[in-house]
C-alpha cells in the first residue's frame, strides 16, 4: 500500500550504494536524492527498505540509508554485540560523510538507534523523527514493556504488530526464492543475536535521554500491541524537546499501515513547520 501510493511520487531513483569499512564491519549505505542530509534508520523487519519511503524523502533530502549489521551487504562481525556497538559504527559513518544538521527518521529499532546516536553525540543532529520506537524499558521488573515476538505463534505476533494483520508486507513469504528466504533468515538471526537479552532495550539509555536536546517527534500507532501507546508517550515525556502523536488504525509500524497520515506529520516535522 505504501509502495503503491508512492509509485506516483515521481523521478526518484537510487543514486548510489556505498560499502564503508568501519571498524571490523562493512556497512552498505544506500544514498538517494539531494538536499539537507536525512539519516534513514530502518526497522528490524526492513519494511522501510522495500516500499517507496526512501524515495519519498529523497525528493527533498539527501537520504543516507545504512543497512544494519547482518542486513543486505552489511556484515555482522563478532565485535558487534549490541545496539551500543552499532551506534559507534554509525557515528563513524556520519563522520565519514561529514554530515551536519542531520535529520533522522528512525523506525522501531531504528528509532532506538537514533536515540543511542543522539545521546552519544547530539552535535550532528537537527531533529529526530521516531516511529514506533523501541530501546527503553519504562515499567517495573514484572511489567512486559515489549511483547515477546519469539514466544508466540506467528499469527499472534502479527496481530500484535499490525492493526490489520493483512497489512504486514511479510504476511506471506511462501513465494520467496530460497536465496531471498536465506537472506531474510540471516537478518532475523542478526536481530536475535543483538537484541534477545536485554530484550530490545538498553537499560542505560533511559538515564541519558537528557542529551537528546534536538526537537523530536514520537509517532506511534494507536493500536500498537507490541508496545502500548503509553510507551511512546513515556518516551516523549522523558525527552527534553519531544512531542507525541498517535495514528489511528495503525499498529507498531504506522508508516507501513497508514502512510498518508504518517507522511503528513513526518513531512511537516522534518520541514520544521510550526506546530512541531
Amino acid at each position, binding site marked *: 500500500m505504501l509502495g503503491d501510493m508512492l509509485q506516483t511520487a515521481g523521478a526518484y531513483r537510487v543514486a548510489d550504494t556505498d560499502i564503508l569499512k568501519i571498524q571490523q564491519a562493512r556497512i552498505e549505505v544506500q544514498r538517494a536524492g539531494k538536499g539537507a542530509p536525512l539519516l534513514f534508520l530502518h526497522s528490524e523487519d526492513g519494511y522501510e527498505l522495500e516500499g517507496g519511503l526512501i524515495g519519498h524523502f529523497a525528493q527533498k533530502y539527501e537520504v543516507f540509508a545504512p543497512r544494519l549489521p547482518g542486513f543486505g551487504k552489511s556484515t555482522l562481525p563478532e565485535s558487534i554485540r549490541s545496539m551500543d556497538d552499532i551506534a559507534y559504527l554509525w557515528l563513524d559513518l556520519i563522520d565519514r560523510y561529514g554530515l551536519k544538521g542531520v535529520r533522522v527518521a528512525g523506525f522501531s529499532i531504528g528509532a532506538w538507534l537514533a536515540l543511542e546516536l543522539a545521546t552519544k553525540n547530539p552535535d550532528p543532529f537537527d531533529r529526530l523523527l521516531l516511529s514506533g520506537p523501541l530501546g527503553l524499558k519504562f515499567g517495573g521488573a514484572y511489567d512486559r514493556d515489549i511483547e515477546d515476538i519469539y514466544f508466540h*505463534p506467528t499469527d499472534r505476533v502479527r496481530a500484535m504488530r499490525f492493526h490489520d494483520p493483512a497489512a504486514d508486507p511479510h504476511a506471506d513469504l511462501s513465494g520467496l526464492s*530460497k536465496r531471498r528466504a536465506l537472506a*531474510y533468515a*540471516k537478518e532475523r538471526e542478526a536481530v*536475535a543475536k543483538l537484541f534477545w*537479552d536485554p530484550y530490545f532495550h538498553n537499560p542505560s539509555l533511559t538515564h541519558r535521554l537528557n542529551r537528546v536536546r534536538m526537537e523530536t517527534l514520537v509517532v506511534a500507532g494507536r493500536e500498537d500491541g507490541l508496545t502500548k501507546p503509553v510507551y511512546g508517550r513515556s518516551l516523549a515525556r522523558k525527552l527534553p524537546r519531544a512531542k507525541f502523536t498517535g495514528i489511528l488504525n495503525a499498529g507498531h509500524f504506522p508508516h507501513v499501515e497508514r502512510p498518508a497520515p504518517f507522511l503528513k506529520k513526518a513531512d511537516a516535522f522534518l520541514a520544521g513547520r510550526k506546530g512541531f
Partner: protein
Amino acid sequence: MDFYHFSEFAWPHLPSDDQFTSMRLNLPSSVYDPKKGADLYNMILDQYVLADELGINCMVNEHHQTATCLNPSGVVPLAIIARQTKNARILILGNPAANLADPIRCAEEMAMIDNISYGRLECGFVRGVPYELFASNRNPTETSERLWDTIELIIKAWMTHNGPFNYEGKWIHKRQVNVWPRPYQQPHPPVWTTGGSDLVHACRTVTKGHTFAMFLTPADRLAKMFKGVRAWCKDNGYEKPADDKFAFMPLVAVGETEKEAREVVEQVFWYVTNNKAEPQHRAPPGYVETSLYADFLTGKFTGGRTDAIRTQGMEYFRENHVAIYGTPDNVASQIRALYGKVGGFGHLIAMFHSGDMDFGTVEKSMSLFAKKVAPQLRDLGTLSKRFGPLRKRRSIKVA
C-alpha cells in the same frame, strides 16, 4: 557394551489433546498434581535402584517448564541415586552447558557427586533443545559457542589443583576459580555430549576423548554420524576411536513373548506420541541452521523431526531401531544388527519407562533385559585403551 536405564520423568496426566497446544513452556502448572507427582518421582527413583541391583547403569536428564520432564535439575536425581545405588555408573546427560547461569557451580556439584558416588559419575553436557532458550532466556545464536566454552572451563576447573585461576572469556567472567572438592576420578569424570546432525561437534567430542551420544535417531542417520566421525578421524590422522566413544538411546521393551513386548513398547511410545510443541518454540532464530529457519519463515517447516516421527508409527520405529523390542533373543539380535549398521557403539541407553507405566511393567522389562539380553552383548564392542584425547597417528613415510 554397557547399558543404561533412562526415564525422562514425564508427567503423564495431561488434559485432552484439544485442551492444550504444547507440553512445553506454556502449559500451566495447574495441570500438575503434587500428590500424584510425589508418588511419580519416588516410583521412578526406585527404578534406578532396581537398575543398579540388576547391573544396569543409570542416566538422568533435565528440562525446564515442561510436562515432558519433571526434572528441572538433573543434579537432584543424580545426587539421590549417587547415594541409593552401589555399583552403577551414574550418567547425567546432561548439564545444559549453554544455559547454565554459573558453570563453576556445575563443576562443584559434579565434583561432589563424583565423590559421594566413589567415582561413578559420567558427566554429560548438552547444548539444550531449543525450547530451553525460552526458560533460560539464553540467546539462541550463542549456544554452540557457549557449550564448548563451558565444557572447557569446567574441565580446567576440575583439573586445576594449585589454587585460583582467572577466567574472563566472552560469556563468563570469574576472577578466582578454585573448585572444592576436586573430583574423585582423576584427572576428571568421563565427559559426554549429545548431538544431531552437526558432524563438527561430534568430531570435536570424540577427538577430545569424550563420548558422543544420539537419541531416538533412525539407524541410517545414526550410521551417517558414527561412521562420519570415524572417517573424519582417519582422514585427519587420529587414532581410531573405540566403540565406547559412541552411545545411542532407543525406546526399549523386552517381553517373554513378542505380543507382551509390543504391548509394553506401546506404553513407552507414549513419549513420542504425546510430545507436542508449538513450531516457533522449535525454531528460534540462530538456534537451528539458517536454511531450516528460512523454511520456518516461509511456512515450509511446521512440525520438525518430532512431528514427522510422531506420525510414522511403531513399525517405522522398529525398522529403524529407534524402538527395540521383542523377546530377549530378538532384542539382542536387533542390537547386534544396529551395532553392525552404524559401525559400532559402546553404550546403549534404554528408555524403559515413559508415560503412565507402572513400576511392575518396567521391572519385568528391565529384568528380562538385564538377565537375558545384556549377558549376550557385554563383550560386544571395543574399549578405549586410555583416558584422554585421541592421539594423532605417526605418519609413515613410504620410500
